[in-house]
């Protein structure tokens, strides 16, 4: 038997895959399905090409600019980051930077780059290129909202030598190390960084284990293996080049076409399996991956400067009128759970606030009646002839909104749904013309609350206008001591949940499926897919 040199024998690959799976499963809260590895004779197949059906057009491939999960799932394969984060423990480990340190007040991070790393266009990774990346992100500003938020307070990069540099901040920035593990701060080549924002969306050069081959908008993306890649982080299952020769991502927006295509063998992997189809892919022929999104769960992000949302009693009544367990049963994955805080249970720093977010219709009624609201003839509360109504603007998760709507109507609160396109959603954010947004934000650090709520957050979708909260958000970002920071973060979660600035509805679980011939799919700490360890077996 001859095995191609680049693919290790099965007995090596298998434990690796198993470890990787274990990591994934531990990282998310109770995955539904343990991918079984009960085919001991399986060998890496001769053909290492897979087809991975995406649910939507990535729109912009540049991981520094996009915040779309679909796009980041592709972008992760093309770019590496300075650091990597263990999905299970949250520990931060070296990647492109072989060593790093931070000063006492978290205003200066010094990195040492790994030796021999090159971009796929042949140029070397140097301190200058990294500095150019960070400078460009700050220049992109709003176009790179996530990346800019991670670089909050950026005050320039001092290049010490070709492999050593210091990133400076004008104010303490404790979340930067975690930020540096995200692909939002993935490192791109000097040429890519110099290109315009639009050009970078369509074509980019990174140091990743795969290279962009082609991207046809609304049709497909194709990536091929990077020859000579040998700088994966220690969290990866193997070293050297990726196992897969190529990955083709056709864009298949219809969920039933993706699931049907997986069944027929047209696709090897599919993104976003509808929860209702979980049972269909639970058999031995498939692997089902349930990855809980860390960060802020799907929620109503309120705008307290708009309509009735300025009234705390109304917001609290809404949060008490939601039976989150039932929403999870009706619209969630069987492996998911109802949100019990304004951070998901898989986010570092999460605090269980199940009591604050419990279903309490009597409490809601008492609050509203104390505030002068009376139940009208149509079963909706009224005050001075004004109905208790608010509108949620969203571009996804319509079923979650409808389930919430039914519950709120039962408790005398009229909720209107305004489903819009993604473009109109971000348009509404730009103008601030909304009562509440229906959305979540994925990030593996509690700082996500600052990104979402703070005046300088970059993605200030929930508008609280609360000085006490603002002070706490800034304080946690500047607190270096872990325990002290956690105490502040507990306080922030309690405050945000109690004053109902963020009204959680569902912990989103991303559900992906593959045929059993694809092994080794892993997820990073933000539940984005990593294909480096993936391998096709016979």
């Amino acid at each position: 038997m001859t095995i191609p040199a680049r693919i290790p024998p099965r007995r090596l690959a298998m434990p690796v895959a198993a470890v990787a799976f274990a990591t994934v499963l531990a990282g998310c809260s109770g995955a539904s399905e343990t991918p079984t590895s009960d085919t001991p004779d399986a060998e890496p197949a001769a053909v290492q090409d897979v087809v991975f059906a995406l649910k939507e057009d990535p729109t912009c491939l540049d991981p520094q600019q996009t915040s779309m999960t679909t796009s980041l799932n592709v972008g992760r394969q093309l770019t590496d980051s300075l650091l990597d984060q263990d999905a299970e423990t949250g520990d931060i480990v070296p990647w492109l930077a072989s060593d790093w340190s931070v000063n006492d007040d978290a205003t200066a991070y010094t990195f040492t780059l790994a030796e021999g790393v090159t971009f796929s266009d042949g140029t070397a990774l140097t301190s200058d290129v990294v500095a150019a990346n960070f400078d460009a992100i700050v220049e992109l500003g709003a176009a790179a909202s996530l990346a800019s938020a991670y670089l909050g307070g950026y005050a320039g990069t001092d290049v010490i030598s070709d492999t050593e540099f210091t990133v400076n901040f004008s104010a303490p920035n404790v979340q930067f190390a975690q930020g540096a593990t995200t692909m939002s701060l993935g490192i791109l080549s000097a040429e890519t960084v110099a290109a315009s924002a639009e050009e970078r969306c369509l074509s980019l050069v990174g140091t990743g284990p795969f290279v962009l081959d082609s991207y046809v908008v609304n049709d497909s993306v194709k990536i091929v293996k990077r020859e000579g890649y040998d700088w994966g982080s220690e969290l990866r299952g193997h070293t050297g080049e990726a196992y897969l020769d190529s990955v083709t991502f056709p864009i298949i927006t219809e969920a039933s076409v993706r699931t049907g295509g997986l069944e027929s063998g047209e696709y090897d992997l599919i993104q976003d399996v509808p929860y209702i189809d979980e049972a269909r892919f639970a058999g031995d022929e498939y692997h089902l991956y349930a990855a809980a999104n860390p960060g802020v769960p799907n929620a109503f992000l309120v705008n307290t400067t708009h309509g009735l949302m300025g009234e705390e009693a109304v917001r609290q009544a809404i949060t008490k009128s939601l039976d989150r367990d039932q929403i999870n049963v009706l619209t969630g994955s069987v492996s998911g759970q109802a949100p019990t805080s304004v951070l998901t249970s898989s986010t570092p720093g999460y605090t269980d606030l199940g009591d604050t977010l419990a279903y309490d219709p009597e409490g809601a009624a008492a609050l509203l009646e104390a505030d002068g609201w009376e139940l009208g003839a149509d079963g909706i509360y009224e005050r001075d002839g004004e109905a208790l109504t608010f509108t949620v603007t969203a571009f996804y998760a319509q079923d979650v909104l409808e389930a919430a709507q039914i519950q709120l109507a039962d408790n005398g609160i009229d909720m209107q749904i305004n489903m819009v396109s993604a473009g109109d959603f971000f348009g509404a954010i730009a103008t601030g013309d909304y009562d509440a947004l229906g959305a979540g934000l994925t990030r593996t650090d509690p700082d996500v609350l600052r990104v979402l709520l703070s005046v300088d957050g970059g993605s200030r979708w929930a508008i609280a206008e609360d000085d006490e909260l603002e002070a706490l958000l800034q304080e946690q970002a500047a607190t270096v001591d872990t325990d002290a920071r956690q105490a502040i973060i507990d306080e922030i979660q309690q405050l945000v949940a109690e004053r109902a600035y963020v009204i959680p509805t569902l912990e989103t679980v991303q559900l992906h499926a593959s045929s059993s011939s694809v092994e080794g799919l892993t997820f990073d700490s933000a539940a984005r897919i990593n294909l480096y360890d993936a391998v096709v077996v016979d």
Partner: protein
Amino acid sequence: MRRLLNPVALLSVLVLAVTLVAVIWPALLAPYDPFDSVGTARLEPPSWDHLFGTDALARDVFSRVVHGARLSLLAAVLATTAGAVLGALIGLVSGAAGGRVDFAVMRVVDVMLAIPGILLALIVVASLGFGAVSIAIGVGLGATGSFARVMRAQVMRVRNEEYIEAARTMGLRRPTILLRHVLPNASKPIVAMASTELALAILAVSALSFLGFGAQPPTPEWGSLVSDGRQFIATAPWLSIMPGSVILVVVLAVNGVARNLGGNR
């Protein structure tokens, strides 16, 4: 008499009568609240309790289809009426004026006919915003061209009739002749055409609502009901098939009646 005994026509009239009840008084037909969950029995297949089954949020699909009739059908009726009235007006003016005016108006109508109706409707909806009324206006505008064409041909035919000559020699004013003598005699084909156009309008309105240009959730519309069931097509196919079948039956019924009433056999 012979027409009334036609079984197809009879069946069609029956279907439309039931549909009319659904439009005017949906609560009479719908056993459940279309917006509220019925317990936790989600994605139940059709049964006597739930004729069309239940959806993912445990709402009775039959009740939602019944309540969806009003918006879907009123939009189709509004679209057809708007298209017929506007088209008839254009055809009347164009046919009566003749000469350069006729030439100019007909070229505009040619352009409208060259654009597929659904595309025209999409353009209108995109510029007016989502909702049943904009869909109705869009679909109506899409149908205007053919109404104008038919009306013009009728006006051209009628205006050379002897009774028009007679009216003219009696010294009646032109608008009077147009409205009192030409319009009544030219409009019969328009009415016949409107009844067949109604069936097409139901389809077009449902198509646009399917594409997500209709009312905001949870308001049921036939098109959006079919669309909402799409993601469950492998596990709960009745969610799409049932509302889809209702659209099919109603469209066939409208056609059946139109064929028998319009003398378009």
